[in-house]
């Protein structure tokens, strides 16, 4: 009786496993590369995925076969979960890894483990406090932050009070942007006063909105310009400004990264500028750099993927369009 039951469960499990995508695909002879983002639902990571697939297609055209495995942590923004993913791929044996580390310290040991297992790791997006990686392919976030600072300073004509709402503790990329912004203001616009730069918005949009409201209720009479170091903070801050009737350029906002909402805000005049990265290029160069390294080429330890300032004026230009509307569907299919 029990064995019958077990048999039924067994079969159903096999059926379930059969339903899993890719299980029918045979293992290719070429390189097996895993790309590990910080999360999988956000547009930004899909662009990186698209870039990785773009690299794969290009390499295939050249006769180099590459299998790309795309695997984020089960719970987004959970360091321990990302460590597990890295470990699992080390012991399952891939040829190389492209990793966007969730924490610049916590991921050090897994990367060193990979290094000891002779698996090269290319770091993308955010930095890591280690030198055991092959290359660091990312936006120069410090430069991006500086670009934001320059632009906001210009908008305010070198005078007034600004706020900066930080993103989250331990996120190296945003920390660099924040530092770049502060340095730009300090160096070029000595008459601009930074009212607050020590508040953290936190990982979720909901939290960022609450913190923005709190911050604005304290400074809404004095503030002239605001810098937001990432997409969620930009959108939440703009929403909080709208609530107070301080949007539409009364308070200038320079944000970072794009989303449907932040582009709408840019178009509507609630946001004056968005510093955008090139995530497709990041994914593309991440994979390409790793493959060159595996082929024995010498690769540069630091590769910048560049930033651009998007404003209402230039947002329809084709170059900018490529950045703010990355051709994800072209590479990932309509399903994604």
């Amino acid at each position, binding site marked *: 009786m029990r064995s019958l039951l077990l048999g039924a469960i067994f079969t159903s499990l096999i059926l379930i496993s059969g339903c899993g995508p890719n299980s029918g695909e045979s293992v290719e002879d070429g390189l097996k590369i895993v790309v590990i983002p910080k999360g999988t639902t956000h547009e930004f990571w899909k662009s990186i995925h698209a870039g990785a697939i773009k690299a794969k297609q290009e390499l295939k055209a050249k006769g180099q076969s590459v299998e790309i495995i795309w695997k984020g942590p089960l719970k987004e923004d959970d360091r321990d979960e990302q460590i597990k*993913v890295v470990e699992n791929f080390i012991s399952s044996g891939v040829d190389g890894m492209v990793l966007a580390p969730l924490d610049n310290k916590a991921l050090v040991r897994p990367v060193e483990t990979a290094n000891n297992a002779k698996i090269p790791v290319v770091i993308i997006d955010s930095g890591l406090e280690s030198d055991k990686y092959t290359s660091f392919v990312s936006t120069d976030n410090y430069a991006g932050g500086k670009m934001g600072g320059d632009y906001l300073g210009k908008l305010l004509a070198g005078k007034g009070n600004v706020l900066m709402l930080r993103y989250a503790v331990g996120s190296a990329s945003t920390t660099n942007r924040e530092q770049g912004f502060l340095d730009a203001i300090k160096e070029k616009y000595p008459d601009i006063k930074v009212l607050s730069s020590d508040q953290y918005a936190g990982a979720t949009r909901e939290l960022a909105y609450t913190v923005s409201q709190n911050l604005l209720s304290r400074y809404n009479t004095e503030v002239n310009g605001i810098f937001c170091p990432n997409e969620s903070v930009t959108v939440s801050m703009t929403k909080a400004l709208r609530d107070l009737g301080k949007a539409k350029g009364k308070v200038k906002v320079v944000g970072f990264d794009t989303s449907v909402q932040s582009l709408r805000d840019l178009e509507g005049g609630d946001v004056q500028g968005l510093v955008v990265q090139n995530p497709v290029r990041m994914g593309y160069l991440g994979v390409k750099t790793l493959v060159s390294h595996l082929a024995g080429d010498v690769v540069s330890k630091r590769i910048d993927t560049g930033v651009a300032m998007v404003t209402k004026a230039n947002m329809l230009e084709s170059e900018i369009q490529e950045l703010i509307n990355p051709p994800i569907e072209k590479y990932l299919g309509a399903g994604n």
Partner: protein
Amino acid sequence: MNWSRLSSSEFLKAMRPFVGLFLVLALFALDSELRTVFFKGSNFKTILTQTVIVAIGAMGMTLVIVSGGIDLCAGSVVALASVVAAKLIEYNYGFLTVTFGTIFVGAIVGLFNGGIITAFRMMPFIVTLGMMGIARGISKWLANNQTVNPKTPLDSVNQLMDNSQSPLTFFPLPDGVWFAIGLAVFMAILLRRSVFGRHVFAIGSNEDTARLCGIRVNLNKVLIYTLAGAFFGFAGVMQFSRLTQGDPSVAIGLELQIIAAVVIGGASLSGGAGSIPGSVIGAFMMASLANGSSIKDWPNYMQEIIIGIVIILAVGMDKLEPLLQRHLNKQKH
């Protein structure tokens, strides 16, 4: 008279987690890709390392659940403990002080849980739900809302969960795995064989009977929650070692994973049933599933669905069997 030591149904019940694990492994063995990759020594080392935190937590949780209670603050205590460990290392304390200091903090939280539950006759669910928020809050407060990265790392603690030096072989296993195995053996004997363990079962099975039979119910409950807290504290040391930093936002929802492991391991949430080997196997099974899904490149949602199904199946097997039996009998007539 010749008595068999275990009745057959009881034997099957005790074997349930092993059957589940065997099923998962057999399923993996059927797949040609997993067969070559999953069943490597180095991969088992990875899974064992990933099991340690849930397994140590599950040992404490098993005590609580067998006694008829529940502890929802496990994840928060792990986070708190990881921050406390980081703070203690910042003050340059040695291995023993850091470890036992952290365990002590976990035990204090457990002591509060047990004390409140018995003194005010409150539901464990409510008390530990409250404590879940309190411990999480305190850990964020202590950590000043950010990760705590000791300037001079304490290698002995960091190495507890470190297998970066030999990623391609099964041995040496990291110290944390050995600690977990040792603790599991000790706890299995304590729960199964000791008088204290029998009292835990008695309380969970029927508190009134336990009281009638002269068992110090309240004292035992306080002890159970305190011990559980100590285990969560130790799991926190392991969590620190994994991240090499104290992280107040780590282990969110870990209590549910721990409870799932305990339940897959054959424990009953109404108390009076459960075992340490079962719970540890449950934890190992969940880590194996996650690892296998990862290797198979199943998307995350697939992995979440499968683990969910496994939990329900593991527990539902006992209920399902008599139902099927009745159904078949009906058809015969």
